[in-house]
């Protein structure tokens, strides 16, 4: 089983690291035995990174919270299926990305339905919107990317994940991750042509 944290020489024979915490393999074994402290330690070790990524994807605190909770619960419920071929962090990220993408699709479908209802409102009551500022245009451009491109872009360019990590989290080849980032940047350059000129 791959370790996310300390190498073996940092641990005592009972699985405790020198600082008194447990190594991940021991934590997973204990969590499988129903040890709540092990669940909590696993949660503490990974929650910040997972929440950051999921919030980047969802853009709303409530959704980010729901997706993060669901990702941990799903991972904990399926701990028996974790074989240890990859690091726990990699496996957890793949669960979290899947939960977030599926959740966002559901939210999009619901909002589409709601927007459909709004569209029947009389034209007379619609107000013209002011021209969006650059920040809004940047956000709109990233939002408009297809999910699979946007996720790679967010993970790589905003959160600093490596292609290997992204590929594992999205269950694709490293080459696919690179190609998606290429496409994401290409689309952003197209969409933001003028806006980019204002920044550069």
């Amino acid at each position, binding site marked *: 089983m791959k370790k996310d944290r300390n190498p073996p020489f940092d641990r005592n024979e009972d699985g405790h690291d020198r600082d008194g915490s447990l190594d991940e393999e021991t934590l997973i074994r204990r969590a499988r035995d129903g040890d709540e402290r092990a669940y909590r330690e696993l949660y503490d070790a990974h*929650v910040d990174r997972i929440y950051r990524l999921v919030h*980047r994807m969802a*853009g709303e605190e409530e959704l980010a919270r729901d997706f993060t*909770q669901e990702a*941990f619960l799903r991972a904990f419920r399926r701990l028996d299926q974790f074989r240890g071929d990859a690091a726990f962090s990699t496996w957890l990220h793949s669960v979290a990305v899947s939960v977030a993408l599926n959740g966002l699709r559901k939210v999009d479908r619901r909002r589409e339905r709601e927007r459909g209802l709004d569209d029947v409102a009389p034209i007379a009551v619609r107000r013209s919107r002011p021209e969006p500022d650059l920040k809004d245009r940047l956000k709109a451009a*990233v939002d408009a990317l297809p999910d699979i491109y946007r996720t790679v872009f967010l993970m790589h360019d905003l959160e600093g994940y490596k292609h290997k990590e992204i590929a594992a989290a999205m269950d694709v080849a490293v080459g696919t991750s690179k190609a998606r980032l290429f496409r994401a940047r290409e689309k952003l350059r197209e969409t933001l042509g003028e806006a980019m000129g204002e*920044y550069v």
Partner: protein
Amino acid sequence: MNANDEPLDEELLRRLKGSYNTPPEVPREEMWAAIRAGLAEDGVETSPEDRVVRLDEHRRARTTPKMPARWGLWVTAAAAAAVLLLGVGLGRMTAPVPQGPVAATGGSEAPAMAERTNPGPMRRAAARHLQGTETFLSLVKSDARSGELSPEVQRLARGLLTQTRLFLDATPEGDPELRRLMEDLELVLAQVVSVEAGSPGTESELNLALDGMDRREVLLRIRSWSGGMAGT
């Protein structure tokens, strides 16, 4: 190299990092509470008391050829109740003890009496904890007779010691009986935790802890306190 292989402009990326769905502070405890509740709903036994029940059940099944159906049901019900009571109780145990007319009419025992006649979630959780600990201590006695301390029993002792300290912190000053009981329990559990399993002195260390427990009549007081709660 194609232009799209290159990162976006540095300034643009900096602005995006700072403005695009920027994560706020992680609501760590709030999310953990929801995850913990989800695990409990699934029947994941996450409290030391539940694991005591499970170990006790396992040992009984091993030593008793046929467990009476009623006992099996009781164990299942107790495990389910523990999840509920501890979840609710621990979540609320920081709530202040109601003061006012009751406290004003009596001495220092008055708040405890008021709680006893109308036990709050914290006292119900404490009762469940004490019952679990009572079962656990009989497991320790059984280990002491064999002169060995199983690793699982020692692990449970650590969990129960942590829980006992939590209850000790949460027990109001106006409830001296429960406070003294938790203090004595803490001492016994700390002694069990410190026993060096597998060493030549295991048996004598265990017996020392159990002698102290008998001297302080810990089991008797747990039963008496729990009996008082059951009678309300």
